[in-house]
C-alpha cells in the first residue's frame, strides 16, 4: 500500500515567488521621499522599479516568478515560471503598461496567488509578497473572518485555510503603503494584522513553520527597500576581471591567494568567510529564519565607468552608490545615514565603512565594518556567504592584505560568473573552493608539528591535497564544455593546490 508521502508529488527544487501588486487608483498617488530630495514619485512608479529589479534577479538565479495584479479584477500578467533573460524586455514592457484604476480585490488576489503556488497534496509551496496601499473593497470569492470559526458571508471562502492547507510551506510578506488609521488613507493595517494572526495560528495547529509578516512603509525609499531587500556592491577602480588576466598573471594571483591559505595568522580575515553551500548544509535543510532574505548583487566596474541607472534600478541605495562612484563621498555619507530604518543594517553599515574608507576616515570605517560583520552573522545562511565575502574584500583592502583580497575576490567573481549556470555546476565549484579553504588546517599542522609528528602531518596534508586534486580532475572531465569562467576557476584552484606544498 502506498503511503501518503510516497504518492505526493515531489517538492519544488527551486524557489517559487509570486508578487501580488495593487493596481487600484490610489497607487497613482505620490509618496513622500524626504531622503531623495527630488520630486515625489508615484507609488506605482516605485513599485514598478522594484518589480523590474525582482525580475532581473529571478532571471539570474533561475528561481520561478509569477506576477498577480489586482484592481476589482484579478489578473496574472506573468504566470509562475522561469524568467528567461531574453524575455526580460518584453515582460518589463508589459509591466510598464500596467495602469492603476478602480478598486481593490486584495483577498481574491491572495487566493489566485495561492493557486499559482498550489502543488496538489503538498498544499501551497512558495513565497507570496503582497504590495498594497488600500482596503479590500471588491473581493467576490474570498474573505477574511474576524474569528477562526466566524460566520461566513454567502458564497465566500475563508482565505486562511485556502492559503494554508495541510503540508503547505508558504510564506506571506505584506508590504502596506501609507498609514491605515483612516479608511482610504492607506493600507488596512487592522485587517492585515488579523490575517497574519490567523495564518500564524493555523500554522501552529498544523505544525508548520509560521512565516507571515506585515510591514508598513510611508516613503518611496522604504517601499523600494522592503520590496527589494538588497545588498549592493560595486568593484574597486583598480579591479581587473579575472578572465582578462594573462595565464602568468593568473598564476601570480593564485600563488598570492595560496599565501592567504598558508599563513592564517597573517590573514585572519579568511577564517571569517564561508562557503554558501557549506553554510547552508551546516544550518540544516529545514532551518527557518524570520529574517527576510537579502538580494545580493555585485556590479563589476567596467571600462565605460559606473553602471547606468543605479538610482532607477536600486532605489535609494543606488543613489548612494552613484554619489560614491562620482567621488562625492560626503554626499554619499549623508545619503547612507538617511537610510537607517529601511535599508538592511548590514548594507547600510557596509556602505558607511566603504565611504568612510574612501574619505580616509580609517577609524570610522573600521568601526562601521566591525558592526557590519556583527550584522552579517545574523543573516540566513544562504545569503550570508556572498555578503561576508564583500566585507572580507573591504577589510583586506583596509589592512592592505593583497593575498586575502585576491583569494576572496576570485571566489566571489567565480560565483558571480556562475550565477546563470546550472546550480549543480555552481555548487560543485564552490564546494571545491570550500575544500581548498579546508586545506589551511592540514597545511598549518605541517608547520607546527614537532620533529616526530612532522611526517604524520605531512602525510595527512598530502592525502588531503590528493583528495581535492582528484575532485578537481573529475570536475575538469565533467565540466570541459562549460566555458572560460569554469576553466579559469579550475586553473586557479589547481595552481593554489600546487602552492600548498
Amino acid at each position: 500500500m502506498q503511503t501518503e508521502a510516497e504518492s505526493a508529488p515531489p517538492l519544488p527544487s527551486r524557489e517559487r515567488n509570486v508578487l501580488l501588486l495593487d493596481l487600484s487608483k490610489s497607487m497613482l498617488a505620490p509618496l513622500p521621499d524626504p531622503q531623495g530630495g527630488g520630486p515625489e514619485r508615484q507609488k506605482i512608479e516605485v513599485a514598478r522599479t522594484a518589480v523590474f529589479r525582482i525580475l532581473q534577479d529571478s532571471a539570474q538565479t533561475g528561481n520561478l516568478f509569477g506576477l498577480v495584479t489586482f484592481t476589482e479584477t484579478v489578473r496574472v500578467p506573468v504566470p509562475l515560471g522561469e524568467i528567461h533573460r531574453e524575455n526580460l524586455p518584453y515582460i518589463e514592457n508589459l509591466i510598464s503598461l500596467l495602469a492603476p484604476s478602480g478598486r481593490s480585490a486584495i483577498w481574491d488576489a491572495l487566493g489566485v496567488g495561492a493557486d499559482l503556488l498550489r502543488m496538489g497534496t503538498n498544499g501551497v509551496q512558495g513565497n507570496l509578497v503582497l504590495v498594497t496601499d488600500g482596503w479590500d473593497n471588491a473581493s467576490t470569492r474570498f474573505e477574511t473572518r474576524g474569528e477562526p470559526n466566524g460566520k461566513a458571508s454567502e458564497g465566500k471562502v475563508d482565505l486562511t485555510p485556502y492559503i494554508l492547507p495541510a503540508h503547505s510551506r508558504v510564506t506571506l510578506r505584506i508590504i502596506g503603503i501609507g498609514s491605515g488609521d483612516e479608511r482610504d488613507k492607506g493600507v488596512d493595517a487592522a485587517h492585515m494584522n488579523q490575517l497574519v494572526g490567523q495564518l500564524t495560528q493555523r500554522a501552529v495547529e498544523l505544525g508548520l513553520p509560521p512565516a507571515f509578516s506585515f510591514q508598513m512603509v510611508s516613503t518611496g525609499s522604504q517601499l523600494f527597500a522592503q520590496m527589494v531587500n538588497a545588498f549592493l556592491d560595486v568593484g574597486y577602480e583598480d579591479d581587473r576581471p579575472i578572465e582578462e588576466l594573462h595565464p602568468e598573471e593568473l598564476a601570480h594571483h593564485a600563488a598570492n591567494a595560496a599565501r592567504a591559505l598558508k599563513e592564517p595568522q597573517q590573514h585572519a580575515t579568511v577564517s571569517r568567510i564561508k562557503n554558501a553551500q557549506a553554510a547552508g548544509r551546516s544550518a540544516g535543510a529545514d532551518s527557518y529564519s524570520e529574517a527576510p532574505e537579502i538580494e545580493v548583487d555585485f556590479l563589476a566596474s567596467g571600462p565605460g565607468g559606473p553602471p547606468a541607472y543605479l538610482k532607477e534600478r536600486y532605489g535609494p541605495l543606488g543613489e548612494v552608490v552613484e554619489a560614491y562612484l562620482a567621488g562625492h563621498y560626503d554626499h554619499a555619507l549623508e545619503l547612507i545615514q538617511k537610510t537607517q530604518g529601511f535599508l538592511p543594517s548590514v548594507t547600510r553599515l557596509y556602505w558607511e565603512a566603504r565611504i568612510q574608507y574612501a574619505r580616509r576616515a580609517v577609524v570610522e570605517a573600521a568601526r562601521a565594518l566591525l558592526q557590519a560583520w556583527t550584522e552579517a552573522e545574523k543573516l540566513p545562511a544562504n545569503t550570508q556567504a556572498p555578503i561576508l565575502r564583500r566585507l572580507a574584500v573591504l577589510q583586506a583592502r583596509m589592512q592592505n592584505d593583497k593575498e586575502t583580497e585576491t583569494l576572496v575576490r576570485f571566489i566571489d567573481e567565480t560565483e558571480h560568473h556562475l550565477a546563470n549556470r546550472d546550480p549543480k555546476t555552481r555548487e560543485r565549484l564552490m564546494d571545491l573552493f570550500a575544500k581548498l579553504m579546508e586545506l589551511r588546517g592540514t597545511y598549518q599542522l605541517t608547520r607546527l608539528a614537532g620533529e616526530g609528528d612532522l611526517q604524520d602531518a605531512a602525510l595527512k596534508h598530502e592525502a588531503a591535497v590528493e583528495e581535492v586534486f582528484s575532485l578537481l580532475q573529475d570536475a575538469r572531465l565533467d565540466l570541459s564544455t562549460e566555458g572560460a569562467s569554469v576553466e579559469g576557476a579550475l586553473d586557479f584552484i589547481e595552481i593554489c593546490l600546487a602552492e600548498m606544498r
Partner: protein
Amino acid sequence: MPEVKVTTRRKSTAKKESKPSVDTTRIAVVGIPASGKTTYFRFLSGHFGLNLPILYIPARADNGSLPLFGDLENDVALEETTYETTDPTDPEGSLETTTRYYVNRPMEDRRKLWVELSAGRDEQGILTKYPLPTKFNQFVEMKMRFRYAAPEGESGSRPMELSTVDEAGGIIADYFTYDRLWLDSAEGEVSEKTCRVIPHFDSWRPDRRDLWKRGLTLLGRFVCGADAIILLLSPGLPSLRDQAQQVNLARGVFRYTHARNLPLVIAISKADKLKEFYGEVEQSVRERTFRSSFDPVDFLLRRDGAGMGTILVAQEGRGISTKSDVFLISSAVSTGEGHPLFIGETGDEAPSAGSVTMGVPVMVNTTLPLARACERILERRATKES
C-alpha cells in the same frame, strides 16, 4: 677523421637496428619542459665510452668508479625517434616518424646515416636541440642502452634501457599530474575523452591534440613497463606556472611509483644554479681532495628547495629516502655567463676564450641517480627472489 652523420629514415621503412633484449630492465626519465632531460641523455651517452672527456665533482668516496658502461653488444647506444606533424597548419595533422641512431663505431652500411658518438669532441660538435622548431609539432622518443654490473650476476652485467619522451615535458607533466590518463597495460591507449582532464585541451588545434594524445599513449605504455623512474627537478624556475607544473608532476610521480611499488630516484638538475653549491664546486676544482658539504636534503626539506619540502617529507617511509635517493646533478657547470666551465690538465680553470679551448667540462654527480636506480632495481629483485 671519423665521419659524423645524421640519418633520416621514414616510418614506412622503419626497422629496429638495435637489439633490445626481451628481459631488458627499463628506467624512465621524467621531468617538466627544460628540466634537463635532453642534456641528461646526451651527457650520459658521453659517459658510456663515447669519447666525451668529463670530470665529475664531487666524486664519490669510492673514487668515482661506478659500474655503468655502454652496451658493447649493441652497436646502438642511443636511439631517437622524432614524431612530428608534417605540416602544422594541416588540420588533419598527418604524422611522420624519423629515427636517428647514435653508435659506438662507424657503420658499414653507408645507405644508413648515423650520428657517430665515437667521434672526437671537435668533430662531433656541440649536440644541441633538434633541427626543427619543436614543442608544438613534434616530440622525440629517446632510448639509451647500457649495462650495469650486477656483482653476483652470471654475465656480470644486465642489459638496461633508459627511456624518455623528449621535447615533451608538457606531455610528461600532464600524464603524471592527471591520474585519469594513466594506462593499465602496455597496449592501452589514452582516449580523447580523458584528455579533457588537461586544462583547455579542447581549445587546442586538432593536430596538436592528436600529437599530444599519441605522446601520452607512448609515454603511458613505456612507464607501464618501467622498472624504476628517475624524476628530474629543476631548482631555478622563474615562472610560477612552471613551478606549479613541476610540483604537480612530482606529486603525480610519487603517487604513481607508490601505487606500483616502483623505485624512484630524484635528480635535482642544473645544480650549478644553486649559488651556494656552485661555490663548493669551485673549491673542488681548485682543491681535488675537497668534499662538498652541501646537503641536498637540508636544501629540499628545510629551505624548501624546488618547493618540495612537505611533499618529500610525506614520501619518507613510502618508498623513497631523501638521504639516499636524492642527488644533485649538473651536466655542464657554467662559468656563470652561460659558458661551460673547463678545467685544464693542471686542474685550473681553462680559458674559454681564444682560438682553442683546452680542457674538460666540469660535471656534477651526473651518473649517480642512474647508478642508484640500478642499485634499487637489483635490491628489489634480490628481495623478491629471496
